[in-house]
C-alpha cells in the first residue's frame, strides 16, 4: 500500500564539508544515510530519519544538520499534523499506534507554576560551600513512636528495614530488555558510586549485576519475569509494580525481536518469544490481595527488605495509596502522567493518568490526615527534568524522586521517542549487540554520577538559599512553595499559597 505519510525530518548535508567518510552511514541504525555505489558519495534518506542526532554528534566535519520538515498542513487547532498522521498510520495498518518515552502533550507542568522561597534579612541563608548540608535520605517505614532503654539509652523499638541514600534521587525502573545491558550496568555502577539506588524493572537481573545488589531495587511485576528467590535475596528492596505512568492500567509486551539470547537467559523465557506482562497481577484483585503479595515477598526474604508498591498516578491515587500503606507497603512509588516507557500505545500514554504534582500532593495530604504518613516513604516519578523539579517534589511531600528519562539523556538519549523500534542508535533502548556496545559502561557510569553530583550541588544551593541545612526540614514543607497562574482549586490540591500571599 502506498503510504500517505510525509517525511518528518529533512537531513541537511553541507556538501562543502562532507568528506564521504561514512561515519553517518555506520552510526545510523535506521539506514537514513547510505553510500551511493555509483557516485561514491554519501547520501541520505529523509524518510528513515528519527532526528536522534547520532549522526550529527559523530560527523567529524560538522557537515550534518537535521530540521523538522517544514511541510505544514493547513493550520487547524483540531486537525493537527499529528492527528492526521496517526489516522494515516492506522488506516494503513489497522493497528494501535505505538510510541516510546513520556507524554509529549501540552498538559500543565505544575513544576513550572511552583516557585521556591529564599531567605532575605529575617532568616540568614546558608552557604553550602562552607557549611555542612544534609541531603541524606532514609527510606522505609518509620515507627509511630520510639522507645529507649532508660539505663543504656539504646533504642528498644524494632525498626523496619531502612535504606539510606546520599541524595534524594534514585534511578527509575527500566527493564533489561527495554534498555540495554550496558545501560543497566551504567545505572547500577553509578548508583553504587553515588550511594543511591537503581531499579531492575521487570526484566530480571543479569548475573553480571548481582554484585551491585546493595544498590538495587528488584521489581516484581505482573509477568514475574526472572523472579526467583536468588533474585529477591540479591536486592536492597523489592518493588511490586502495579502500574506505570506512561501506561496506567495495561500490561506490557516486550516484542520477540528484543528477546535476545542474554535477555532470554535473564527473563528465563525462550529467545524470540514475546514477553507478555498481563494488565493486572492475577493474584491481586484487591487491597487485601496486595497485602498478601507484599507479605509473601516479606516472608520470602524473611522481613529483611523494604517492599515498595508502585502505581501510576490515577484519579483515586490518594485513597489507593492509603490502602497500599495499610497493606504493608514500606514505600510507595507514584508515577505521573508524564512518566516514560520503552513502548506504549500512544493513546494511553497521552490520555490516561494525572500529573505527578497533583497526585503527590493529594497522597501526602491524605496520608497525613490519616496519621499514617510515617508508615511509608513516597517516591515521586514521571517527568522529573532537573533539580528544581526534585526540590519542589520534596517540598510537596516526596521522600525521594526517581528519574528515568533524565538518566537516559545523560547516557546520550535525545528523546526522539523511538524506543519501541529497538534500534536505538545511542545503544540505550535496544538489545542489538552492535548497538549496545556504543555505551561504554565506564563512561556511562561517569556521566550518570556527574549528573547526580550536579543536581545535588544545585539542591544544596537552593536549600541553603532557603536557610535550610537538611533536606528533611523541607520534606512536605509546602510553605516554601508559592504558585503562579493557578486556580484556587489547583492551589488547594497542591496545598500551596498563591505567590504574593
Amino acid at each position, binding site marked *: 500500500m502506498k503510504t500517505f505519510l510525509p517525511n518528518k525530518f529533512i537531513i541537511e548535508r553541507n556538501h562543502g564539508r562532507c568528506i564521504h567518510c561514512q561515519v553517518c552511514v555506520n552510526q545510523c541504525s535506521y539506514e537514513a544515510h547510505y553510500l551511493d555505489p555509483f557516485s561514491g558519495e554519501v547520501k541520505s534518506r529523509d524518510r528513515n530519519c528519527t532526528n536522534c542526532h547520532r549522526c550529527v554528534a559523530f560527523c567529524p566535519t560538522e557537515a550534518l544538520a537535521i530540521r523538522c520538515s517544514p511541510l505544514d498542513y493547513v493550520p487547524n487547532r483540531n486537525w493537527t499534523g499529528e492527528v492526521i498522521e496517526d489516522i494515516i*498510520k*492506522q488506516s*494503513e*495498518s489497522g*493497528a*494501535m*499506534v*505505538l*510510541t516510546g518515552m513520556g507524554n509529549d502533550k501540552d498538559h500543565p507542568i505544575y513544576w513550572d507554576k511552583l516557585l521556591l522561597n529564599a531567605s532575605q534579612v529575617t532568616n540568614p541563608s546558608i552557604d553550602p560551600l562552607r557549611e555542612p548540608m544534609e541531603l541524606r535520605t532514609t527510606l522505609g517505614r518509620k515507627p509511630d513512636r520510639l522507645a529507649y532503654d532508660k539505663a543504656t539509652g539504646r533504642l528498644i523499638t524494632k525498626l523496619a528495614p531502612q535504606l539510606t541514600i546520599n541524595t534524594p534521587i534514585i534511578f527509575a525502573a527500566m527493564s533489561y530488555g527495554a534498555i540495554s545491558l550496558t545501560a543497566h550496568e551504567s545505572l547500577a555502577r553509578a548508583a553504587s558510586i553515588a550511594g543511591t539506588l537503581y531499579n531492575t524493572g521487570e526484566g530480571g537481573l543479569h548475573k553480571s549485576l548481582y554484585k551491585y545488589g546493595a544498590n538495587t531495587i528488584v521489581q516484581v511485576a505482573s*509477568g*514475574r*519475569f526472572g*523472579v*526467583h*528467590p536468588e533474585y*529477591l535475596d540479591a536486592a536492597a528492596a523489592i518493588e511490586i509494580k502495579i502500574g506505570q505512568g506512561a501506561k496506567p492500567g495495561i500490561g506490557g*509486551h516486550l*516484542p*520477540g525481536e528484543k528477546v535476545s539470547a542474554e535477555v*532470554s*537467559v535473564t527473563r*528465563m*523465557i*525462550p529467545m*524470540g*518469544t*514475546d514477553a*507478555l506482562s*498481563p494488565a493486572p497481577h*492475577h*493474584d491481586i484483585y484487591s487491597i487485601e490481595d496486595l497485602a*498478601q503479595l507484599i*507479605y*509473601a*515477598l516479606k*516472608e*520470602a*526474604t*524473611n522481613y529483611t527488605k523494604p517492599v515498595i508498591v508502585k502505581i501510576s498516578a490515577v484519579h483515586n491515587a490518594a485513597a489507593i495509596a492509603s490502602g497500599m500503606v495499610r497493606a504493608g507497603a514500606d514505600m510507595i512509588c507514584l508515577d505521573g502522567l508524564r512518566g516514560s516507557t520503552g*513502548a506504549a*500505545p500512544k493513546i494511553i500514554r497521552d490520555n490516561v493518568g494525572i500529573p505527578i504534582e497533583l497526585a503527590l500532593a493529594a497522597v501526602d495530604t491524605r496520608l497525613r490526615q490519616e496519621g499514617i504518613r510515617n508508615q511509608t516513604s513516597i517516591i515521586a516519578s514521571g517527568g522529573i527534568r532537573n533539580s528544581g523539579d526534585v526540590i519542589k517534589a520534596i517540598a510537596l511531600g516526596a521522600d525521594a524522586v526517581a528519574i528515568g528519562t533524565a538518566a537516559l539523556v545523560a547516557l546520550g538519549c535525545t528523546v526522539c521517542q*523511538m524506543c*519501541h*523500534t529497538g534500534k536505538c542508535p545511542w545503544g540505550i533502548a535496544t538489545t542489538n549487540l552492535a548497538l549496545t556496545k556504543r555505551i561504554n559502561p565506564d563512561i556511562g557510569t561517569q556521566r550518570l554520577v556527574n549528573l547526580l553530583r550536579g543536581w545535588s550541588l544545585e539542591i544544596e544551593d537552593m536549600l541553603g538559599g532557603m536557610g535550610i541545612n537538611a533536606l528533611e526540614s523541607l520534606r512536605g514543607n509546602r510553605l516554601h512553595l508559592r504558585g503562579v497562574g493557578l486556580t484556587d482549586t489547583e492551589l488547594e490540591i497542591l496545598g500551596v499559597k498563591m505567590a504574593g500571599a
Partner: protein
Amino acid sequence: MTKKLAKGRGDRQVKIDALGLPYRELNALLREAVAGGAESIELTNVYGQRYIGTDLMKPVRLDIHGTPGNDLGAFMEGPRITVHGNGQDGIANTMNEGEIIVHGHAGDILAMSARGGRVFVRDDVGYRAAIHMKEYGEKKPLVVVGGTAQDFLGEYMAGGVLVVLGLTLKEGERHRASYIGTGMHGGVIFLRGAVEKHQLGKEVGVAEPDEADRKLLRTLVGQYAEYFDRDAEEILKKDFIKLFPLYLRPYGRLYVY
C-alpha cells in the same frame, strides 16, 4: 512461645502444632527447624496460615494436616509439601523448585507464574490454574489436576505442562471451563476428555497426543496414581487431547509506528 512449640529442635524429624499460631510465627518456626537440620516436618492443626514453604530453600519434607492458607509454597525453592486436606488460593505462586501434593481440592491461580517444580492436586481446582506458567531450558513446571478446573485454565501460559484428568466428573459430564488457554504462547495442556471449540481461547490449537506426549502422560499419570492410590492404566484408557499455542507471538500484529 517459640521454645514451647519447636519440638525437637535440631532433630531430623520435627512436629509443629500450628493451632492459634499467626503465619509469621509459624513460618519463623519452620525456618528455625530447617536451619536446625530438620529433614521432615509434620504440621498439625493448620488453619489457613499463609506462605507455608516460602523461604525454606532446602528439599525439606512438609506434611500438612488441616488447611494451609493462600500462597502455599509461594516463591518456593526446594521443599516437598504434602497437604492432607484441601488447599486454598495461590498454591505454588511463582514457585521455582520443589513439589506440592494436595489430597483434596485447590483454589484459584494454582501455580501462577510457576517457573519450575511439580504440583499434584487430587481433585478440582479453581479459576486461572497454571496462569502464565513459564519454562526455560531444563526448568519446566509440571502440574497435574485430578479433577476439573474453572475458567481461564492455562491462561497466558508461556511454558510448562498442565494435565487435567477430569476424574471428578460424573459419567457423561464434561469440563465446564471456558477461555481455556486464552493468550497461551508456550507450554502444553493435556485434557482428559473432550471440550467444545467455544471453550478454548483463540490462540489454542488442538491435537492428539503423539508418542512423546503419551510417554510424558504415562509418567505424570503414573505419579498421580501413586500419590493418590488410583489406577493409572484405568485413567490412561480414556482419550486425551493436547492443547498447544498456535503462535509464539499471539499479539504481534497489534501495533504500528
